[in-house]
């Protein structure tokens, strides 16, 4: 694979990521007009429900206005556009907060491809391929030698939003053939590997899973494949305009109920969710909600400012026909913040069947053997 070819793939991936902004779950971002970095960052944060820390910049750079024309873009695409337009790096510092760093985002060489078959705006990158070799003497004598040789591809899946990131249920081990028989696990699925999430960014997933080093000593792999197991999610949105009301507040839609309870003893809001399980949906529900992040929320002040908040103490349960979940929304601990008055809550519930998509990279370069 030549560098030009790899970069071409990367561009295709980015274009695909920007093009399909209308087919994903999660918030939409509109950034229009001539905005300073601080104005654009604030607008971005308000629309995705996160705080954005902007560093001190020299006057000229801080006041420079850039014409933006994003309408209904995904958070990931909007973040990339901020980086491109202002020459900065936008990092996810924690789940509810981004930070802007003044230097341009590094361009990572990688084999990339859009995952358009799954949902618009998904991209998958092969950013590194490693050979690990270890030999260890643990005892004197012929039985004392332990060796371990593996190939470790580093694969990154970037999704349009945090909510889209929730759709990844699991991935298979990487393999070198497209048709290899997968060993079903006890649930009848492939051997599923839980991925490490990339830090605090639920929209990006990272796979670094070792696989046997193919024999033959070639300098490239003809094929590298893995399967992604995906849920389909439906967003349920609820808005509580007056969160300080002393009585419990109940809101419902066709599939679920949300109760917001006052919590006078603590500076936190108690939220309870419940709903009916779809027929045969228990396993799917367990799989989808056994993870953090089935909920996106925004705590806002009267004038629309986002207040830093985190979800703590999540409890989930499902019975024969129903499911329940409860958690607390805790405000950030900075004392100078305005008091929030409004809670916007989006709950993502799984629906339908698990989809399996095979991702394949061709002509993958290998590092030299030991």
């Amino acid at each position, binding site marked *: *694979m030549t*560098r030009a*070819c*790899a*970069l071409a*793939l*990367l561009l295709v991936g980015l274009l695909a990521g920007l093009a399909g902004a209308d087919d994903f779950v999660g918030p939409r971002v509109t950034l229009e007009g001539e905005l300073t970095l601080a104005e654009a960052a604030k607008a971005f944060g308000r629309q995705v429900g996160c705080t954005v820390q902007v560093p001190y910049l020299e006057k000229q750079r801080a006041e420079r206005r850039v014409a933006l024309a994003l309408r209904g873009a995904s958070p990931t695409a909007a973040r990339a556009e901020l980086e491109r337009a202002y020459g900065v790096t936008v990092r996810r510092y924690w789940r509810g907060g981004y930070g802007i760093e003044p230097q341009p985002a590094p361009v*990572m*060489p*990688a*084999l990339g491809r859009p995952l358009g078959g799954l949902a618009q705006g998904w991209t998958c990158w*092969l*950013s*590194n*391929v*490693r*050979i*690990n*070799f*270890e*030999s*260890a*003497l*643990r*005892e*004197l004598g*012929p039985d*004392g*030698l332990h*060796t371990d*040789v593996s190939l470790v591809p580093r694969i990154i899946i970037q999704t349009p939003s945090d909510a889209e990131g929730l759709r990844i249920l699991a991935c298979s081990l990487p393999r070198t053939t497209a048709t290899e028989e997968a060993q079903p696990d006890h649930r009848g699925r492939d051997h599923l590997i839980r991925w490490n999430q990339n830090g605090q960014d639920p929209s990006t997933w990272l796979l670094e899973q070792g696989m046997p080093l193919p024999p033959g000593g070639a300098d490239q792999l003809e094929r590298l494949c893995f399967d992604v197991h995906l849920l389909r999610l439906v967003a349920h949105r609820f808005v509580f305009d007056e969160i300080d009301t002393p009585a419990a507040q109940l809101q419902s839609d066709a599939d679920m109920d949300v109760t917001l309870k006052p919590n006078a003893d603590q500076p936190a809001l108690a939220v309870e969710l419940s709903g009916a399980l779809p027929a045969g949906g228990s396993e799917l529900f367990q799989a989808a909600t056994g993870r953090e992040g089935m909920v996106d929320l925004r705590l806002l002040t009267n004038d629309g400012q986002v207040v830093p908040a985190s979800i703590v103490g999540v409890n989930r349960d499902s019975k024969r026909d129903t499911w329940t979940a409860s958690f607390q929304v805790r405000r950030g601990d900075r004392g100078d913040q305005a008091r929030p008055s409004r809670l916007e809550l989006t709950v993502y519930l799984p629906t339908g069947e698990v989809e399996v998509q095979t991702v394949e*990279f061709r002509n*993958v*370069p*290998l*590092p*030299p*053997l*030991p």
Partner: protein
Amino acid sequence: MGWLTRMAGVLLVVAAAGAADSPRRISYVADQVPARQVIDELSARLNRRLYATWSEDPWLKKPLTLRFDRAFPRDVLAELSRVGERQLQRGDHWSYWLQQGNRGDRRLDERQLGDWLVRLRSVSYTYRADVQPGSAEPPHIERALSVEWLLLPPDDQAILGLVDAQPRPLRYSDGTTVAVGEQQLAMSINEGYLQLTLRLPEPPVGAGLRLAELGLALTTAPITERVVSLDLPAQGATGPMVTAEGWQYTVEHRDRRFVVAARPVDAVDGPRPPDVKRSPIANQLAELLAGRQRCAEARLQGADGTPMLTATSCEPAGGSRSPAAGLRIAAWPHGQEKPPEAARMVLCVVDRGQPAVAEELAWRDLPLPPRTLGDLP
């Protein structure tokens, strides 16, 4: 050997580490006793809960024969593992799991250093090569040799006796030497023991190359032990202050915990010791001592004197690291759903004495592991 005194409900023993009557030594005899009974009885003596992984495991009926006379807990656990053919894996600080199968603790060599065992576990070669697809950069390759030791103190509290560990100049069989400054020695705690990992630059190329000389300098200090037996107050009450051998003890009963405030009677903060440049490992070990977490271990006893599995936490009182501030020790029943009412507490507090000189250990003519795929057998 220690001495005893009894005054106002207090039994005090001050002993050198490893003294025969120390509660940190284990005596036990089992002759063809079912494993289930053995692990229950040893749990009580060790104050560590020994769990079988499966309550219906037929192994629990296997008759075991064990005999310990004032043995170190480390050696008791190793012998149980060997005789029972079970691998012991640490759960939390107060428990072990007996896993099926006994891999045997592999080692290249083992030496005794005072009451400690110094186990040379492995000599490893690692090769890591990275390529970034789509990049014009050449592959990034790292090669390194590492040596790993496990340092096993006789019991958990004795870990405070290690003061420093330093590598010595290393020599290969072709005469190449590696100065101390080119070696990186790191320490971590592994299953309650101290693990030392020495990272070395890539060794010279050459068939049949061996480690001609590998050295480690270890500085240890004696451990002093103070054992106090204290009557326990009722729920919500605070017991009387008890003074014994220059220390004052007060026990408070809060919920299910017994909290002991222990402070030296006459201790005053002396002049601050001069700043001495210490190795990173000596600093780590000094921090371990200053945190005081391992300094105390308590055993609660029922009214009839039956010892209960007990967990202990220990920290400097008020967060101060001044010796005059003393210790805050909390003890509570561990691993029992309905523990009996505790009537007494036997408290064992250890401290580190003055360091002895460093002892140098050397290993000679060790083989190196294969460094290429072609070298593999």
